[in-house]
């Protein structure tokens, strides 16, 4: 019967098309996004979209314990591979899920599209601030004082993965500064390898380097945005890598390809400046090198400093249109703070928690075989506390990433420089903001 009804509804499409044309202009909410955070009566059904493989198991734990708040989880492709686009479409149509996974760098975009509910109305959320690693909280407040647009889920503090066997065999000290890293790069090159591979497409990795150097790509003073892809820190980082590329000290394989995996697996490339979740990528991409890797804190710009960049990390956000803000935040907090959920996410998908307590999960205390038994998560725990809390993402990162990546690709093939790519990104980003009528300082 259900099917028949839907078939009839399908036919009814004809009649309602005229409406479709004019009712899609914008979402319902106003600019102030604070929601009403009171419990609903009776049983509540929530929908949640994520792309974490195996998240169903964690949600199942919740559903078993909370018969009155049942969460239906749906998984799709990774954010930029389609799920964000779907969220935007759903927000426009007014049928977004209650909750969704959104990476930190995409939150401002959803905020600008007026898609997120301010969770500050929920006392539980406000109170949870202290549970989280401070800078992750900065990622969900979007640089505001009182507004909260998501519950941090995981983070990607960056460190240096390196082939300890090769470094040792060639008598190269583990670099602690970027200067030393460049010197090491020359030694590695002399030994026939490359110290690392410069990725032309992982602009968020590059942003992590700028982040570590205390750069700021975006700022929002409430009246207008400031775009600064070409500031001092960005220039330092861009010039540094440009040098390495020019001197043929780094390889430039496109990242995440077989070719790239092979470069690591065959021992051609000796280190990777990556985030905590990268631990797994190496293990599966370069299986022949098991046991030969170690992790150290990232090289510093100035000797003696202790700064880390961040690459990646998601939040659980509540979408405009939900009728159950209270229940939604309850679930989001449970998912991202409770030991059982964090353990489940860590086991099934290597999610690295954003809570302070989560950094001490039992599974993160153990030595990892692939890294010769090193307790690598101790390093990341330290890095997680060294991330600058003030880094802000812009509202059109998809476009910024694409444009800068285009320039980086050209630079890697010898046309133009990384810094020129950033300069171009600066211009096109400002244009993109203007196209959205977002006030921006020129």
């Amino acid at each position, binding site marked *: 019967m259900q099917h028949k009804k839907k078939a009839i509804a*399908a036919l*009814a499409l004809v009649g309602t098309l005229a409406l479709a044309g004019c009712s899609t202009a914008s979402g319902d909410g106003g600019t102030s996004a604070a929601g009403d955070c009171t419990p609903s009566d009776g049983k509540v059904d929530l929908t949640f979209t994520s792309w*974490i493989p195996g998240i169903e198991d964690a949600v199942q734990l919740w559903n078993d314990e909370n018969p009155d708040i049942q969460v239906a989880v749906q998984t799709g492709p990774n954010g930029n*591979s389609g799920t964000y686009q779907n969220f935007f479409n759903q927000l426009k*149509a*007014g049928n977004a899920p209650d909750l969704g996974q959104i990476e930190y760098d995409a939150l401002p975009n959803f905020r600008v599209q007026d898609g997120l509910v301010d969770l500050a109305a929920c006392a539980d959320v406000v109170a949870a601030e202290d549970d989280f690693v401070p800078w992750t909280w900065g990622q969900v407040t979007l640089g505001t004082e009182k507004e909260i647009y998501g519950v941090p889920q995981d983070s990607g503090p960056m460190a240096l993965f390196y082939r300890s066997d090769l470094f040792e065999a060639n008598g190269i000290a583990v670099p602690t500064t970027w200067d030393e890293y460049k010197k090491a790069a020359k030694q590695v090159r002399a030994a026939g390898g490359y110290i690392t591979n410069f990725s032309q497409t992982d602009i968020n990795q590059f942003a992590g380097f700028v982040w570590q150097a205390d750069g700021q790509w975006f700022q929002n003073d409430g009246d207008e945005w400031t775009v600064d892809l070409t500031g001092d820190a960005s220039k330092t980082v861009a010039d540094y890598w440009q040098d390495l590329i020019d001197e043929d000290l780094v390889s430039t394989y496109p990242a995440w390809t077989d070719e790239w995996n092979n470069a690591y697996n065959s021992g051609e490339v000796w280190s990777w400046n990556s985030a905590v979740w990268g631990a797994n990528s190496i293990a*599966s991409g370069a299986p022949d090198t098991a046991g030969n890797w170690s992790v150290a804190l990232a090289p510093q710009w100035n000797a003696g400093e202790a700064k880390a960049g961040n690459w990646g990390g998601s939040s659980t956000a509540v979408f405009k249109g939900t009728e159950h803000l209270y229940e939604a935040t309850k679930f989001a907090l449970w998912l991202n703070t409770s030991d059982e959920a964090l353990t489940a996410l860590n086991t099934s998908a290597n999610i690295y928690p954003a809570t302070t307590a989560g950094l001490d999960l039992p599974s993160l205390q153990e030595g990892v075989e692939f890294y010769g038994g090193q307790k690598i998560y101790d390093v990341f725990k330290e890095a997680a506390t060294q991330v600058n809390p003030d880094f802000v993402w812009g509202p059109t990162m998809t476009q910024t990433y694409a444009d800068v990546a285009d320039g980086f690709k050209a630079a890697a093939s010898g046309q133009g420089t990384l810094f020129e790519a950033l300069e171009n990104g600066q211009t096109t980003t400002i244009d993109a903001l203007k196209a959205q009528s977002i006030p921006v300082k020129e």
Partner: protein
Amino acid sequence: MTATTAMPGVVGPKGAGKGASSGAPRARGPRESLMSRTAAMLVMAVFTLYFLVPIWWLLVASTKSPGQLLTTPGLWFADFNFVENITALFEYRGGVYWRWLGNSVLYAGLGGLIGTLIAAMCGYALAKYRFPGREVIFNVVLGGVLVPATALALPLFLMFSQVGLTNTFWAVFLPSIVSPFGVYLTRIFAAASVPDELIEASRIDGAGEVRTFFTVSIRLMSPALVTVFLFQFVAIWNNFFLPLIMLRSEELFPVTFGLYTWNSQLNQIPELRSYVLIGALLSIVPLIVAFLALQRFWRNGLGAGALK
């Protein structure tokens, strides 16, 4: 034309796989020299290699353990893990792959069937009847394929949202049964293979227009219909744009979109890689089965021309 060639299933000179040298006198011409035949077979053989080497690579890759994908030669087997890989694929996430395969068969099978039928009716009408607006319709249908699907995604999604049909079977099924290409192809074929005299004869016999179509014309058009069906089947099978925008529930995914989803998660869960490869290989099998099952209709279609 003689009665023998008019009978369906009789092996004619074309498409039946029967060599020229056997039987009929017409087949043995002096100009079909050994050289011509050798040259022809050589061309076919070279291109068979071209077409099948990548498929061979996929087959070989799906028998390897994940660690061997990069470390062993791509075109030859290493440890034979085919069964292990298939078992792992079928067990992953409660055997969701099976479900996807089933969905695809439903979307593509049913969609291809209905899509072919309505396209054939439309193409037939455009070919066999004269009426005002005929060319306008024909050109508008061509116009429909000029706009890239990327541009239609959002309007389609909003439209289905209006009636609450997103994330349902219908959201993927309904738009995918529309095949402007099918209308084009069937129009050309109807014009070529359904003689007006035959329709006229059917009218004299007292059959209605619609009945004539379903009893006489559709059979004459069968090679075209099979072609359209096959293309429509594969197009729906491989369409990932509609599922991408319309579907959120994993249990509704068709197989290619499911594989795309897994492929996009490779950075997080690299083990998915071997599932994607073997899943892709297996997803070709139903298409091959459909192809083999349908190709006999091409032969039957030979009768079409002969009937006249």
